[in-house]
């Protein structure tokens, strides 16, 4: 009986590590409803901007909107790492904004919103461009890049040496 308990107890994770969540001012604001709404405003603004340029066809303006939004998302959530604030001796250094949102939890409302939004933008633009097959593929590539980066299986995974920071792992003191 005694033995069983110690066996079970050893499998229970460190409560401290689980319970204590430091506030990260860098990613906290992304959860605000206003921040969600600003994405929509940004998309509308982009479409308007590209739409009023003369000699730009409807297909091109949608494609430009799509790509500009996707690139913006990529830069903001997947390209810039770390936080300008001091949190827990640099616990978020080397992590992208996406990995910092909600302290690394998956499928949170903000993450759901930010994943679904570019998909809807893509579908919308496909349908507004008279199903032009060329722009469809161009936009799909842009969409897939940021969708893959958002998948849970890509959490803290680095491909092609992007965002790699050396010496980030804690080394146990060899006693």
């Amino acid at each position, binding site marked *: 009986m005694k033995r069983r308990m110690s066996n079970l107890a050893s499998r*229970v994770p460190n409560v401290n590590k689980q319970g204590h969540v430091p506030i990260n001012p860098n990613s906290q604001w992304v959860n605000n409803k206003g921040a969600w709404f600003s994405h929509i405003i940004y998309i509308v603004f982009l479409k308007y901007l590209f739409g009023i340029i003369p000699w730009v066809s409807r297909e091109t303006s949608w494609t430009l909107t799509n790509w500009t939004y996707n690139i913006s998302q990529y830069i903001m959530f997947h390209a810039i790492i770390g936080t300008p604030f001091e949190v827990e001796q640099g616990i978020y250094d*080397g992590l992208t904004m996406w990995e910092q949102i909600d302290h690394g939890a998956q499928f949170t409302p903000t993450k759901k919103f930010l994943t679904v939004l570019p998909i809807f933008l893509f579908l919308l633009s*496909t349908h507004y461009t008279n199903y032009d097959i060329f722009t469809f593929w161009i936009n*799909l590539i842009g969409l897939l890049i940021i969708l893959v980066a958002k998948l849970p299986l890509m959490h803290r995974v680095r491909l092609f040496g992007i965002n790699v920071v050396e010496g980030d792992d804690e080394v146990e003191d060899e006693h």
Partner: protein
Amino acid sequence: MDPLATTPPTASTWAWAWTQFTQTVALIPGSKIVGRYIRNSYQNDPFRIVLEVCLLLFVVWYLLEKRYRIDHHEIPLSKQEVDELIEDWKPEPLVPALSEWEREQMEETPVLVSEQGPRPRVEGVSQPVLNLVSYNFLGLAGVNDLKEHAVHTLRKYGVGACGPPGFYGTLDVHKDLEKKLAEFIGSEEAIIYSQGLTTTLSVIPCFAKRGDILICDEAINFSVQKSIQISRSQIRYFKHNDMNDLERILKEIEQEDQATKRVVTRRFIVVEGLYVNTGDIVPLPDLIALKKRYKYRLILDESYSFGVLGSQGRGVTEHFQIPADEVDLLIGSMCNSLASSGGFCAGGRELMEHQRLSGLGYVFSASLPAILAVYAIDGLDILASDQGKTVIRNVRDVSLQMYQGLQALVNTGALTVTGGNNQSPIIHIRFDRAWAQKTLPLPSDAQFPANPRRPLPHAIRVELEKLLQSVVRETLTHHVLLGRAKYVVDQERSVPDPSIRICVTAAHSKEEVQEAAQVTCEAFRKVLKPYL
């Protein structure tokens, strides 16, 4: 069209079902537009439609998934298992029962019944005793002039500063003290902290973060051990005062850099000026040469060397005639030599300014009470004057006197004495491990570790401590107050061997120290008589 008026199925049930479905859907307002839209969007391109449907399915899946954390591996326990665990659990007592040896130690703790100083009165002893346990190296504790000034300060400023330095806690005396410290040490600027032991705990994590590298001496004191631990940096230890071992580690890291082509992070070498655990001095010139060659920054803890080493008491930098700005972060304590309280850090202006916003101890702790700041200023004034030189010469003389007086112990072969002859007023008397292993009746199940740098097992430790405690008891009957060095054993990285730690001060005369050394030798002889 009325759906009820349709004819019953004729061709097949499927066709009938489809008609029913389309007719029902047609009832929903706007469904015609949607239907037309879907027919339109098909565009004879099934592949594209499949992709779009896949994307929509992905959206549905993503929206329906439950929130979870990747890095948390929770174990699902059944109700039965939970019950078992709860049943098994026996609460530990809030205060664990003391072992016999722990109780003895508690009972023998000396209690002062007079004010702190070089010759206090101890409960149960008729005469004043010679205090050889306090870090009051310069004998500044309880000096009448300083005391009067302190009382005057108390009347002017009150008791506490009542706030952190950045939040109404800064007084003029704090700025004076910072200025005086910087001037005295010869650094650009200095910053004061309100607690001596926690100064390193604030300074080191302020600069060293996750991913940075700290290289630290093995014999470093407890406070620094904890500070480098909470900095979350990578830590490497080198053998105590062994510059070859340090260089080996520096080379290793250099090779790792070249192999991994990693981004160079902040890197520090952390040492103590005068090691309180061993009583020896860091070889600073060699260290600075290494630090420059391998491009590291140096953090020097001068908690015990400040006010003791160097002709004017500027610490280990003056001891080796090295300008203080060669050391990047010089951390000191005002609790020891200056007989006040609090700590300080001295160095470049930017480094100090950074701490005023990011040093947790500076930002969040209430600042040093004015009375203690003024006491420290007065102590600094004494140090900086000619009187300071005399005082420090006295400390050195009595340290050497004590060291020489204890040579009789070294000659027995049973004990080692470190410190004293190297200008250190901290002297440790330890059992020689080889001698103890051979001669002392120690518990047979405990083994001496093969590596002399490894800590002793608990059972042996307790036996040696008991012997040392008998020596302490014996000297107290001759009015000499000695003390064993005590450690938080399970928190130390590598706890040093048990020792009697003697701290001589300038307030002791040569004759007194000579007598104390004699008393100590006698006591050791008496206690170790059966084994010598």
